């Protein structure tokens, strides 16, 4: 490749290959090589960073500000850390409406409060009209490590739990772009996943939030790290009416839709029922469900297998090419 393509930012295989082949070999250090969303650094801390380029910047259920706080806090939560501090870097396009900027700053304040994080430092830059699209945000986050995720320690029978319905964030953003002429009641699922933190001590051995690439991509990552194949039960996957409707009307596959407030957990079999009960007590986890398990009766290690609603089996592939640009 001699020029950057949109696919590089899609979260799919192209992006992962780019990082593995172009970034890591040059910057290569053991920590970076792990390619984790958040790295554990000396002193018992976890450190993460994310940039937000969502288009449009306002959508039902949130805005670029809410995303910027929750996305970074969530990376820390699923890496086994309590989010504590974030940095806030704003790149503003000349001409951005003042009212829009104020609204976003207030969203950031509210989201930070809900996530229990303090905005400790920041930066503001302005670029000329036309050289940036309204506003881009980068947040870096620091958290206190309370657990070490370890998918390699997974055992046969371990359960995979999904904390809620898939794809509302993507659908809300898509519809807000006005491309499809669909009218649907859907709000982004953007939320802080801090309610998952106690589960690290209650049986969760690995977690990941479902962002770009969707459930299928995240589960592929899990499958690559566990010693046994994952078998997922399609019928158990919770979907909202709006996403099911979009799937039927537009042919969108919910398994590849990004969320911004949903996670998938790997939990010991003996702890699964208790974890599920705890999740369902929380407003953000009401639709939690066990969607699969580690099972070697079909398939081989590293494989992610779906048992379809019709009872047939197939492999579930991670996202390869660009699906929806600028979804987060």
């Amino acid at each position: 490749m001699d020029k950057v393509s949109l696919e590089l930012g899609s979260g799919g295989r192209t992006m992962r290959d780019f990082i593995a082949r172009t970034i890591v070999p040059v910057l290569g250090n053991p920590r970076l090589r792990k390619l984790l969303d958040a790295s554990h650094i000396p002193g018992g801390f976890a450190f993460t960073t994310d940039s937000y380029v969502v288009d449009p910047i306002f959508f039902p259920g949130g805005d670029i500000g809410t995303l910027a706080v929750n996305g970074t806090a969530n990376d820390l939560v699923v890496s086994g850390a309590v989010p504590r501090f974030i940095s806030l870097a704003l790149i503003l396009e000349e001409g951005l409406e003042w009212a829009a900027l104020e609204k976003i700053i207030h969203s950031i304040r509210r989201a930070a409060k809900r996530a229990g994080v303090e905005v400790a430092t920041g930066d503001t830059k302005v670029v000329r009209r036309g050289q940036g699209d309204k506003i881009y945000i980068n947040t870096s986050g620091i958290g206190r490590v309370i657990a070490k995720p370890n998918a390699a320690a997974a055992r046969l029978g371990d359960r995979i739990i999904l904390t809620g319905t898939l794809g509302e964030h993507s659908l809300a953003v898509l519809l807000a772009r006005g491309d499809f002429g669909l009218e649907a009641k859907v709000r982004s699922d953007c939320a802080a996943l801090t309610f998952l933190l106690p589960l690290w001590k209650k049986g969760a051995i690995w977690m990941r939030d479902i962002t770009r690439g969707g459930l299928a991509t995240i589960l592929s990552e899990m499958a690559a790290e566990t010693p046994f194949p994952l078998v997922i039960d399609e019928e158990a996957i919770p979907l909202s009416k709006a996403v099911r409707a979009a799937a039927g009307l537009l042919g969108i596959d919910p398994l590849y839709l990004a969320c911004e407030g949903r996670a998938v957990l790997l939990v010991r079999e003996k702890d699964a029922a208790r974890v599920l009960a705890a999740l369902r007590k929380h407003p953000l986890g009401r639709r939690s469900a066990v969607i699969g398990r580690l099972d070697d009766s079909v398939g081989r290690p590293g494989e992610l297998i779906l048992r379809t609603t019709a009872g047939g089996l197939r492999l579930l592939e991670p996202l390869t090419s660009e699906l929806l640009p600028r979804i987060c």
Partner: protein
Amino acid sequence: MGAENSVCLGIPVKVVELDPSGESGKVDYLGTRVQTGFALLPGIELGDWVIVHAGFAISRLDEEEARETLDLLREIVEKSENDGSFHP
């Protein structure tokens, strides 16, 4: 994976809005509504169930036939449960 209206999607949807001309309106599926053309189905009425393709309704759902197909499926399931050829 992607959104492609060009694909045949077989879900029946309900006509919930109809322009006076009868040529366009909206269909509803699970509470989501989409603009649809009805020029290929003259005489369409509110409440009809239709199949939509590439933004146009192409056929009306025959509810009697739909019921018969469901009955046939139920019959096949019952029979297989009874004669032991059932392997879920």
